[in-house]
Each structure stands twice: as C-alpha cells, then as structure tokens.
C-alpha cells in the first residue's frame, strides 16, 4: 500500500509545498509577520505569468524572470507603503491587514479574469517522465519543481548566513531596537525581506499554475499548506521549512495511496501531530533555546 513509489511521489509533491512555504518563512522569520495573503500572492503570480505569457506568446518559463522582478518590486513597495505601518506590539494588525489584502486580490482577480479555472501551459514537459527501476516514474516537471525548491532554499540560506544583508535580517529579527542602534534602517530592511519573499513566491506561482487548475479564490488553501510546512519545519533554518514541505507532501501522498479522500486529511493530521509532539518544529530556532 505504501510503496516506494508513493514516498517518491510524496517527496516530489513536497517540493512544491516547500516552494509555497519559503516565502512565508522569510517574512515571518524577519518580521514576525504572518502574511494571510500569501496564498493569494501565489495565485496572483500565476495570473500574471498567464497574462504576460499570453500577451507575448512565450512560454511561462520564458516570462518567469519578468514575473520574479515585478513581484520583487511589488513586495518592496507593499512593505514600505502598507505592511510597515502594521508592525508593532499588536500582532492582530498585520493579520487583519493581510487578510484584507487577500480579499482585495481575490476580488480584483474575479473582476478582471472571471471565475473560470485556468492553468499555465508549458507543452510536452508537463507529462514527460523518466522511468526508474522498480516501476517508478518520475515526472520531469515535479523533479524540476523539487530542484527549484532546493535551489531556492540554498539561495535563502546563503543570503541569510553569508551576506551582510543576512546578518541585518537576523539581527533585526532578534532585536529590532538594538539593530537600529547599529545603523540598520529596519523599515527599508523589511522592504528587502518582502521583495526576496515575493521573488520566491513568483517561482511557486509558476509551478503551482502548471500543476493545478487555478481560480481567483483558491489562494487560501495554498496558504494553509505553506503555513503547515513552516510550522512542521520550525524557524531554525530554511532547510527546516524545506523538510516541512517534504513531510507534508509525503503525508498527503501516503494518505492518497490509502484512500483518495484521506490525502489532505493525513497532511493535516501530521501537522497537528508535530504541533503536539514537537511544537517548535523539526529545526527549532536556536536563539531562544
């Protein structure tokens, strides 16, 4: 029932969840801001890729760099103009505001693109696969998704651990006031963090849009997966987030293998189990240890 194939397909699915989760982890890690509109950003990115791809008659893969750049700029401006004003002692304010942004994005998309379901078409790679011994077939697209998630995780780890910007991110996350004393302009820094997060979201948008049929109102379910992956992974490193995505993917795949109605549920159950047994996640943040 739970074959090696199931696990492999789960890991591949987990790559997509990891990609969903990384952007959420960046924003939460730096600012303690839970972005309720995260899933809607993923959907918005897919519509943007669809629009640009349609207008230029190029593959979504080709227009991806444009979507990434547009989203990074969007992230910076959004943080500087709106989200920075929500940061403070009260954690409810950013929740309410990003929930509002979520509602706005869904309705703007509904108004401009209708409720019809769409998907991104990338041709024959969508169904191409490589056969492994043991009757396991690995789709090129899921493999590319997983590889992209790995690359994004590596890139984020490098930024946060090996660059001055990363030191500033972690310092501001630890102690905003003392970071200010170091000459760090925290509000601009938060702009950079959201820009990076939305750059990763744009990657998630592409692979989501190829894998799923999407409609304007589907974002919140992606938020849920992303949130679960972040909680399972813990906030110690982006590798934790990556692992959280994989765990969620494998759990769902096993659930689906047992019973098609059980897949999503088993994912949620694993999330709850981690919350109970290891509330700080697989890779806890060491600062408060």
């Amino acid at each position: 029932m739970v074959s090696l194939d199931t696990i492999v397909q789960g890991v591949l699915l987990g790559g997509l969840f990891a990609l969903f989760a990384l952007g959420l982890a960046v924003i939460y890690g730096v600012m303690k801001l839970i972005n309720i509109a995260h899933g809607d950003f993923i959907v918005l990115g897919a519509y943007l890729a669809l629009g640009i791809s349609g207008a230029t008659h190029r593959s979504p893969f080709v227009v991806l760099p444009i979507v990434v750049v547009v989203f990074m700029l969007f992230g910076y401006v959004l943080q500087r103009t709106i989200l920075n004003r929500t940061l403070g002692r009260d954690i409810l304010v950013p929740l309410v505001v990003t929930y509002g942004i979520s509602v706005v994005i869904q309705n703007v998309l509904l108004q401009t693109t209708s409720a019809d379901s769409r998907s991104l078409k990338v041709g024959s790679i969508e169904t191409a696969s490589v056969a492994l011994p043991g009757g396991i077939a690995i789709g090129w697209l899921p493999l590319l998704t997983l590889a992209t998630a790995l690359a994004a995780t590596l890139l984020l780890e490098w930024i946060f651990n090996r660059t001055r910007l990363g030191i500033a991110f972690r310092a501001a996350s630890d102690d905003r006031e003392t970071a200010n004393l170091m000459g760090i302009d925290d509000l601009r820094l938060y702009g950079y963090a959201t820009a990076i997060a939305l750059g990763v979201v744009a990657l998630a948008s592409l692979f989501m849009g190829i894998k799923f049929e999407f409609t304007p109102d589907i974002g919140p379910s992606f938020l849920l997966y992303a949130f679960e992956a972040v909680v399972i992974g813990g906030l110690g490193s982006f590798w934790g987030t990556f692992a959280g995505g994989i765990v969620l993917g494998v759990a769902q795949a096993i659930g689906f293998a047992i019973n098609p109605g059980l897949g999503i549920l088993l994912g949620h159950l694993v999330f709850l189990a981690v919350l109970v047994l290891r509330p700080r996640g697989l890779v806890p943040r060491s600062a408060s240890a």
Partner: protein
Amino acid sequence: MMLEVRGLEAFYGDFQALFGVDLVVDAGERVALVGANGAGKSTLLRSIAGTRRSRPEAIVFAGRPIGGLPPAEVARLGIALVPEGRRLFPSLTVEENLRAGTLGGRTGAWTLDRVYALFPILREKRNAPSTSLSGGQQQMCAIGRALMANPRLLLCDEISLGLSPAVVKQVYAALDEVCAGGLAVVLVEQDVELARASTERVVCLLHGRVTLGGRSRELERETISRAYFGV
C-alpha cells in the same frame, strides 16, 4: 565641542524623567554620568542615541541638531551605544555580532582584526554563538560591536554591571586603550571611584537634574556623595 545637550526633557507618559539637562562633551573627552537608580542616566544616553526622540535642537552633535532623528541615522553620524544588558544578537555568532556593528556603513580604523587584538578571547570564540559567552566576554563583544561602527562618540551604559572585579578592570583597561585613539566617551557607571578614575569629567544626575559637574580629579568624594544622594 562635539556633543551639546541643552535643556533636554524626557517623559515616560506622565512621568518626567529629565528636567532640562545640559551636557557638553568635547572631542576625545571622557565623561562619566553618575547618580542613583532612576536618576535619568540611561534615559539621557538613550535620548542621545536616538532611541528616544527629543526636540531636534535639544541635542546637537558635530554642529547638527539630532534630537529628532531616528536611531539608525544617529548611528550613521557616528554615535554608538553599548546598551545596558549588552543586548547581543542571540542568533548571531560572536563574529557576526561584531560585523553587525558595521551595518551602518561607517568605515575607519576599527576592523575585526583590531577588535580581536583588543579582546583576544573573542577571536578564539569567533564562531561560537554569542549566547555561549560569559558575562565579561559578552560585554567585550558588545563594546567591540560598537567600535566596529567606527564611532566618534561612544556611549557606554553600565558596562561593569554584573561582572567580577577582575573582569571590570580588564574591560576598563581596554576602554583606556580605545580612548587613546581620540574617541569621545560618555559612560554611565554605578561605581563612583571607578567613574572618576577612568574619565576626565564627572556629571552627577539626581531626579532628572544635573546636580554636579566637574573635573574627575578635582571633585571631592564628599561633594559627589552629596550631589549623588541630594543631602
């Protein structure tokens, strides 16, 4: 003069912490702030560093009113604060904490190598989490972090607090070495004798007002005591 505080007032809600405080610091000068708990010493330092906003003209640094500037801008002008309780970044290593001091973008004589020469133990522990350091080592790291910003004015808030006498001696000896380079220092110190010995001037605060100011060498112990306790 390098720093001029004129008629500085500070409030916490309805409570007034500073009542028209004046303070002048010349380039390269070391000034000690003494006074009982709640006298307003830390508030004064935090106002200078910008973590508390003031009237712009109440604090003038190098000819520029800075009372209304955010702390990051004050830091970039060359004022570094070693905060009370050290406030190292717990998720950063020792060396990353030191490098965090450079994020304001000021450059100068202070580099990692020079800080390590001043505090060799920090070089040994460079890759250790800052949380693994002893109290004295943490204080060295906090001072090193402030120096990495290459400030013109260094503010030290109770750097001897909670340290053993031997370590306090070591930290103050290092501070002497630092000041040989012409850096101006304002330090808050509970130990009046230590404050006198390590500065050129002493300023005493009581209930948010300056009650005494003078050359460290010339002030009598009793005079300071009277200003300190207000008797």
